[in-house]
């Protein structure tokens, strides 16, 4: 079967399975990724089928996981590493920033680091502290890393294929609260480039840029806005480094208004980068300043408050209204 309706988690699982099957150098590493299949079951069944030598339960030490993945990559392997939750990546931050990101340049291109770091990220699952964060900007700021996040099962499948084939380190942010959302995956399709944005909905009055878990929120906001006679275009960014500014620019030159939506805190977030660059590129097209909707400059709140903290349909529409009022 080439076209299936799959949840995002299962699409990633199928993609990892295909990679393990087709390239003997691909390894899966992480905490509980073996028998358990990961706490989100994304690697479910892979160790059973490919063995403990390919799907490796690691000691509980994130720096060790990424550091040894670097060593394995230097030996010619293509490790796909799982960090169990977004808030647990920081012990590995040193290895990612000082070693993984810079080693190719340090070696003047003579060695390559094809390492994928999977991070289930974002809120909305009622979790305890450190299980709901969106640290993508902390990685996008670092040269040498590529940062992507899918919002559909098809993208989850194909972007994982492409990330594993990339000769650069890729941080693969998985929208954990969308893991169970189903959509169609064509496993024989020819995918577009990994870092190209996708117009998820066409519209005429305003552009919403989002990625990962916020794409669904924006689609819902656009449906609600349509009832009020407003036509919103949605760009699913897919890649936070590099960013496909051409697709955003094309959209904004048409709609003349832009709102960027992400779960991560607004301050120094990817919305700031997009606002600055689109303002430069589209200064004479814009009818309103670029607005941003995202998390606040506070620690991610306790679960009972996360619906207030996370951008929802109403917060997005509030920003849409403010933009249209200019």
């Amino acid at each position, binding site marked *: 079967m080439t076209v299936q309706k799959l949840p995002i988690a299962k699409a990633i699982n199928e993609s990892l399975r295909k990679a393990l099957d087709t390239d003997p150098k691909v390894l899966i590493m992480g905490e509980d990724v073996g028998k358990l299949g990961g706490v989100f079951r994304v690697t479910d069944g892979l160790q059973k089928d490919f063995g403990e030598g390919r799907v490796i339960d690691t*000691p509980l030490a994130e720096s060790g996981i990424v550091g040894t993945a670097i060593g394995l990559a230097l*030996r010619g392997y293509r490790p796909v590493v799982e960090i169990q939750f977004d808030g647990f990546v920081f012990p590995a931050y*040193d290895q990612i920033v000082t*070693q993984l990101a810079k080693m190719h340049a340090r070696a003047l291109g003579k060695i390559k680091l094809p390492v994928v770091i999977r991070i289930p990220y974002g809120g909305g699952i009622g979790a305890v502290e450190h299980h709901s964060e969106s640290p993508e900007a902390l990685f996008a700021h670092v040269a040498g890393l590529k940062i992507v996040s899918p919002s559909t099962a098809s993208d989850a499948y194909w972007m994982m294929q492409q990330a594993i084939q990339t000769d650069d380190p890729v941080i693969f942010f998985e929208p954990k609260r969308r893991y169970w959302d189903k959509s169609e995956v064509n496993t024989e399709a020819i995918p577009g480039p990994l870092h190209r944005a996708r117009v998820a909905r066409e519209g005429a009055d305003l552009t919403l840029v989002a990625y990962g878990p916020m794409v669904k929120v924006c689609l819902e906001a656009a449906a609600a806005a349509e009832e009020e006679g407003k036509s919103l275009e949605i760009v699913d960014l897919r890649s936070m480094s590099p960013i496909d500014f051409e697709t955003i620019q094309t959209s904004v030159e048409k709609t003349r208004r832009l709102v960027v939506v992400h779960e991560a805190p607004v301050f120094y977030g990817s919305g700031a980068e997009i606002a600055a660059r689109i303002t430069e590129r589209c200064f004479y097209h814009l009818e309103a300043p670029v607005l941003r909707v995202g998390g606040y400059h506070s620690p991610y709140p306790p679960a009972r408050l996360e619906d207030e903290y996370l951008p929802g349909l109403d917060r997005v529409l509030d920003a849409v209204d403010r933009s249209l009022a200019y």
Partner: protein
Amino acid sequence: MTVESTAAARKPRRSSGTKRASAKRTPQPQSSEPPLVQLLSPEGERVEHPDYQIDLTAEELRGLYRDMVLTRRFDAEATALQRQGELGLWASLLGQEAAQIGSGRALRDDDYVFPTYREHGVAWCRGVDPTNLLGMFRGVNHGGWDPNSNNFHLYTIVIGSQTLHATGYAMGVAKDGADSAVIAYFGDGASSQGDVAESFTFSAVYNAPVVFFCQNNQWAISEPTEKQTRVPLYQRAQGYGFPGVRVDGNDVLACLAVTRSALERARRGEGPTLVEAFTYRMGAHTTSDDPTKYRADEEREAWEAKDPILRLRRYLEREGLADEAFFTALDEESETLGKRVREAVRAMPDPDPMAIFDHVYADGHTLVDEERAQFAAYQASFVDADPAADAAIAAAGAAGGPGASGGTGVHEGDR
């Protein structure tokens, strides 16, 4: 092989006993030093060890001596070049020649080395041209050699990080079914890093063929070893389930024998070993450091008597294994090396400014392409300053096209 000793913490060597708050809470000092594998005494006399034997030909012994002398000469030249402003910084290995040459000569060609930034002697053993080590200290690159040409990874500056890379590489060696071994160098200061602890855990759990070679040179910039540990460092291995051994780091024969044994153990699939080479950093941490602020001259003088090169020379002379012609020829070779290094460094050109954008990614990145093109256009805008130079810069950047936002033309050439 078993852990050499399970002795409790010794009395720290530099702390005054009277400063201890409570003798009851402090492990009782041991009356004897922990065992130290030694095959050549500071006086240059061969001594036997029950677990480690070595039998080298006169030529091999002269070879080790030559390695140490040339490494020290190169190191002295680099220090001088820093003082002359040719290098921005130098991290001298003075005093650690035996630890590095002994361990370095224990390696096979197919073994892989993960060094710190001070392993100039190991680099020498691996056949890395000494002048290649100086690029990063001059500031023309961050590491100018191909790691896979000599199985010698780039110098790692962040303390301890490379021990995990070595462990991962060794895990890969085991997966490949190869009988190569991997060696990770680090120091007494690095022993406090979490990455080193994690590398011990990972290598033990996966039984990785890696040797952890710790040069305990007694000082981490200004902090003595007792600021890092309450037990002799080699004893840390026991807690992870693999052997640890302390070797006289100024004894090239012992360092060779112990490292060789640890590498063979790794090849046999018996897992990691921690070697603590007990040595001394005779110089400053780097040329930016001033040891007179924190350590006494007497300590350095005591270690001078244990000099690694002097003791092997005494042995060679006593046993008639090298004649005056050998030493004279080596002096000449040293001076030739110094001159070659000096000339090579002075001739080392500054990199092309466009090199900022090279090798950031293996598969390209549109932002790098955009910024490269912008920078080239900016450089080319200085038309009146030096037309010839500007033309060259413009040509270098032209492939991306001034102002081009997503050009990939320049990048293709970088792959």
